[in-house]
């Protein structure tokens, strides 16, 4: 971006914050804020360890499965709501409600019904991700211009052909966007699920570090997760931009 005529890279201010953190950490102002350099050292230290990799495996597995379910279930529901007024009017109030409801309150229910294991985490991921996928997919489908539909029919496309060759592509920008937003929520879901279950994956590590007051380790783990969440977001946004070129000209 440009400030006062000088072009400055967008995230460069993080360097300033990093320096401030390092200073604060070294001054020993609070044991909660260790120096940044120490945190980075710990990251290098713990990432290759088997405990970390095991936790990563559990987290990755539950994340991927949860997202897959949310996408495979959510997109068809969103499409159904986009094409059928009846489905839409029945389901929309619920979707709207769950999108802004504190889903964390439902995690104890999942824990109680499905135990303290990976299943609960997977279901938490699904719970967090699915609503935005449904809503944005619906929006994408609803904004398909009927002239595209009529074009498909006038050239003799069957319903399946129309769906696969036209609707999916026409609504694709919104669908990809919904998946991206779903994944961001899924990251929050997988973390919250593990924090509450706390004997699985990263939740277990967090519990371990915090009970032993290993602040540097705790922050190291946080940074890794935050970095992953951010990188995922950027990767998906990039993918979205590749598809977005035709989004504006659909009407």
């Amino acid at each position, binding site marked *: 971006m440009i400030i006062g005529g000088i072009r400055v890279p967008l995230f460069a*201010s993080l360097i300033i*914050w990093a320096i401030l953190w390092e200073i604060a950490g070294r001054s020993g102002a609070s044991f909660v804020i260790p120096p940044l350099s120490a945190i980075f050292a710990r990251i290098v230290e713990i990432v290759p360890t088997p405990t970390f990799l095991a936790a990563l495996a559990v987290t990755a597995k539950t994340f991927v499965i949860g997202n897959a379910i949310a996408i495979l279930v959510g997109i068809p529901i969103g499409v159904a709501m986009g094409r059928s007024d009846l489905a839409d009017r*029945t389901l929309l109030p619920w979707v709207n409600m769950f999108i802004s409801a504190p889903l964390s309150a439902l995690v104890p229910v999942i*824990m*109680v019904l499905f135990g303290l294991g990976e299943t609960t985490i997977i279901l938490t991921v699904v719970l967090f991700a699915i609503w935005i996928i449904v809503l944005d997919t619906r929006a994408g489908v609803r904004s398909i211009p009927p002239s595209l539909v009529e074009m498909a029919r006038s050239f003799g496309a069957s319903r399946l052909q129309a769906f696969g060759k036209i609707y999916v592509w026409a609504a694709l920008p919104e669908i990809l966007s919904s998946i991206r937003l779903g994944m961001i929520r899924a990251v929050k879901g997988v973390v919250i699920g593990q924090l509450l279950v706390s004997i699985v994956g990263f939740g277990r590590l967090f519990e371990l570090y915090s009970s032993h007051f290993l602040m540097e380790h705790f922050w190291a783990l946080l940074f890794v997760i935050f970095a992953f969440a951010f990188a995922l977001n950027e990767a998906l946004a990039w993918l979205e931009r590749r598809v977005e070129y035709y989004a504006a000209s659909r009407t």
Partner: protein
Amino acid sequence: MATIAEASAARQGGGTRPILAHPLVLRLASVAVVCAAWEYAGRVPISPAFPTFLETMAALFDMIRDGSLGKAFAVTLEPLVIGLAASVIAGVGLGVLMGLNRFAEWLGAPLFIIAQAAPMAALIPIITFAYGIGLLAKVVTVCMMAMPVIVLNSLNAIRHTPTSLIEMGRSFQASRLNLIAKIILPSAAPVIFAGLRLGAASGFIGVILAELLITPTGIGDIITYNQSIAEYPKMYAAIFAIIAVSVLFIEALEWIELTLFRPEKRASA
């Protein structure tokens, strides 16, 4: 008719099943279906830990009647209200400042963008280390969860003020103050309000997680206590109550915005 939605609405306007199509009827019907399904699932039972709808509602009314629900809400909502108020004032202020000043934006935006994408809930244990387990820790949790989205929405709202409105103001020689107060802020209001609603939702998540993760008080206490003694109807009732309150609170925010600030949205709402 520009979209499929409008086209299908026009098609169905023919009134094949007028009563069923009435929005309120449909809504009540779907609520009834869900409650019935809940009741059935509880009776089967799909799990010993799954009470029926009626059991849950009975427990809910019990807790309302003996005042325990009310007291719990008072304890839970206290850090929420304080935290949200602080988040709104600081968040909108920061967002507007960053929207009007490029340097402030460069300095602050990356922090909030990362906070928005990252699972802030993971920071809750750190908050307990720093602030203990009392009211302050919970207020800080709410602020931490709510502020990023409020700040970013305010920032974007200001930055996306339509250029022609600003040019219009400048063409009539508006002072900087007038430009901000009479054009930029009113134009940004709807997106800022949307941010407030999202912030409120995040605030609720924050306060619930704080109660479930830090120390159980208020509603969180009802949930964890009844979970530990397997008193599931009360546990589910408390969860139902907090979700209901959260949804109503956010609806109330939307109603306030429409009534007080944007008359032209009432036409389309």
